[in-house]
């Protein structure tokens, strides 16, 4: 019976202390306000999020609400023209492209509101297994989405390792906000022929594992596969056909493949520094899709506990992606000034499909004000450089304030 008293003391501590927290089911409310502003006022987003979490015996319910307002001007992909300063205004992505070659379609102004609501239920089914179900709907003036997901997690009996599998289905409907329609793929903007809403269905699968490597280190690996079919184009994006000296001859609508297969591999290690409360988080993601985009993301965070209640977390993220196979900065024209279009009819000049490097530097500060309240403040600076896009680069600032309260 050696060590009886110390073992008993430990067992008692577990009993009495654990229950002090889990006595009654409580709602945790976590609200976040995020503002994203691009350097030249191109796009600004104000995002308000609320997460309500209720944890009770072996069960966790999360209700999530998001409200976004987006405004600004986004590059359409069209070549910048000196002919005029016309830009487009509309709820989300510019309305009614007026006819006439040579107009500047290169920026479209927009203003939109998005609301999203989701719920997730996670139910412990045995000592080592948990089932998750969830659904989410989102609505904006040019995009409707509905998704559902299921997941399964199994922990090893000693809790040192776990395996997660997840499956999600998403159904999207995409259209131009003013007309409710989608333009003909690779159609000439000046003759704008329209079709109905674009539908896209996506299935995502994920397999992941975590493992405690030693007292200070935990590692996580995820592999995911995503298959989608349907309308993948962006109804607002435009490709210009120009002469060598940059004179626009015609503009065409975006035209992307009708399916996409994406795979990604993600690894992360969290290491606690010795006996200190400080930790480092290193993550790496490799992504690949059948559109020809490969990307690498390296993410580094250092969690510095300033006092028992305050922490500071510097953050560096570096991202590099290759361009899509069908990315064209522009189409060229032949001697008769006829645009030379790709033979497979697939093309996009969306800057997001361009080869790109992005660096993020950030700092997060968190403080627990009371036992039931904590506040987090995050500031990030994002610098993107595009290899081909006219707009070359993009700088943005993100400010985020979160407030968490336990009822």
């Amino acid at each position, binding site marked *: 019976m050696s060590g009886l*008293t110390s073992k008993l003391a430990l*067992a*008692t501590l*577990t009993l009495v202390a654990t*229950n*002090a927290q*889990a*006595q009654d089911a409580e709602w945790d409310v976590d609200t976040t306000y995020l503002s994203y502003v691009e350097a030249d006022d191109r796009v600004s987003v104000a995002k308000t999020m609320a997460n309500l979490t209720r944890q009770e015996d072996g069960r966790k319910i999360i209700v999530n609400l998001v409200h976004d307002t987006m405004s600004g001007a986004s590059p359409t992909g069209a070549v910048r023209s000196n002919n005029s300063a016309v830009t487009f205004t509309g709820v989300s992505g510019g309305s009614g492209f007026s006819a006439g070659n040579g107009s500047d379609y290169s920026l479209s102004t927009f203003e939109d509101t998005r609301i999203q609501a989701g719920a997730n239920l996670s139910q412990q089914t045995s000592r080592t297994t948990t089932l998750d179900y969830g659904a989410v709907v989102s609505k904006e003036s040019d995009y409707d989405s509905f998704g559902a997901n299921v997941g399964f997690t199994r922990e090893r009996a000693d809790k040192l390792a776990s395996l997660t599998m997840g499956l999600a289905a998403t159904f999207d409907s995409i259209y131009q906000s003013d007309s409710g329609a989608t333009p003909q793929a690779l159609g000439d903007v000046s003759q704008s022929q329209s079709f109905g809403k674009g539908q896209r269905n996506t299935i995502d699968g994920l397999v992941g594992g975590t493992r405690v490597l030693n007292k200070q280190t935990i590692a996580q690996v995820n592999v995911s596969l995503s298959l989608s079919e349907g309308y993948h184009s962006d109804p607002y994006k435009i490709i210009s056909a120009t002469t060598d000296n940059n004179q626009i001859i015609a503009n065409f609508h975006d035209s992307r493949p009708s399916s996409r297969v994406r795979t990604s591999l993600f690894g992360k290690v969290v290491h606690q520094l010795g006996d200190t409360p400080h930790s480092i988080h290193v993550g790496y993601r490799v992504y690949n899709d059948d559109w020809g985009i490969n990307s690498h993301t390296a993410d580094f965070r250092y969690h510095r506990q300033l006092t028992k209640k305050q922490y500071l977390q510097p953050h560096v993220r570096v991202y590099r992606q290759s361009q899509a196979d069908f990315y064209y900065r522009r189409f060229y024209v032949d001697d008769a000034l006829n645009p030379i279009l790709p033979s497979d009819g697939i093309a996009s000049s969306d800057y997001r499909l361009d080869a790109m490097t992005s660096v993020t530097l950030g700092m997060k500060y968190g403080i627990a004000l009371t*036992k039931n309240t904590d506040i987090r403040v995050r500031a990030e600076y994002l610098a993107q450089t595009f290899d081909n896009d006219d707009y070359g680069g993009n700088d943005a600032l993100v400010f985020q304030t979160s407030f968490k309260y336990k009822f």
Partner: protein
Amino acid sequence: MEITENEHYFSIQFRAMASPCEVLIEASSRKDAKRLGKITRNEALRIEGAFSRYRDDNIVHKINNSNGEPVQVDSETANLLNFADQCYALSEGLFDITSGVLGRVWQFDGSDKIPQQSDVSALLPFVGWDKVNWQSPWLSLPARMQIDLGGIGKEYAVDRVVNLLRANTDAPFLVNFGGDLHAGAAPTKQVAWIVGIEAMRKTADAVNTIALQRGALTTSGDAQRFLKKDGIRYGHVLNPKTGWPVIDAPASVTVAGNSCTESGILSTLALLHGADAETFLESNDVVFWCQR
């Protein structure tokens, strides 16, 4: 609930868990004492309701009437069962929450009605935590077995109340449920909380007073619950392995510890060691007072 004002503290008294319950607290006002008293009583009644085996609307009833079917328990019950599981292991089977069925043949009413060995033997197949399948949060209790959390419930309630009061006041207080007590902090208006140990038998050195600054004190003993036959006194503490009362146990064992739950287990285990109670407590470096 009764509140009385003393020189240095308020005393709040009520009944719960078949015991007199009391909180001594250096509250700033009667109103504050009342507020904290309500918190205490609500928690005591909640725990009594949730874990008493004399009710038919709680998890213990559900488990005891599950007929061998697995029952999913809530997290608080799971913690209590985990704790009972650990105590069973640490005590090498002496502390066993399934031993309550032995009460069917043992009635400690001060008489000489000792059951037949055959009656005791017939019950032993239904005693033993090792026969239970406990995989949190699932418990499968074989048919005709029973669990009883009474052996830890009151102590647990005291510790829970201490945590609750600490979260609700800075005033020093002492919680005492039926003799299991826990001082949340040393008093500021006197040197210590003065706790008397009830005299079990009328011997000269029986009564002790203990000056308790903080921490817990619990007392286990046979009180008035015993049988006596042929000059042998059978106290109400049963050895779950034999189904028989422990012989030569001290009349009372008082143990000091960090929490009521912890010292309550130690005082119970000491009684189960019978004549070796003091040796057991000494070898485990426990602070204790025994009355024989």
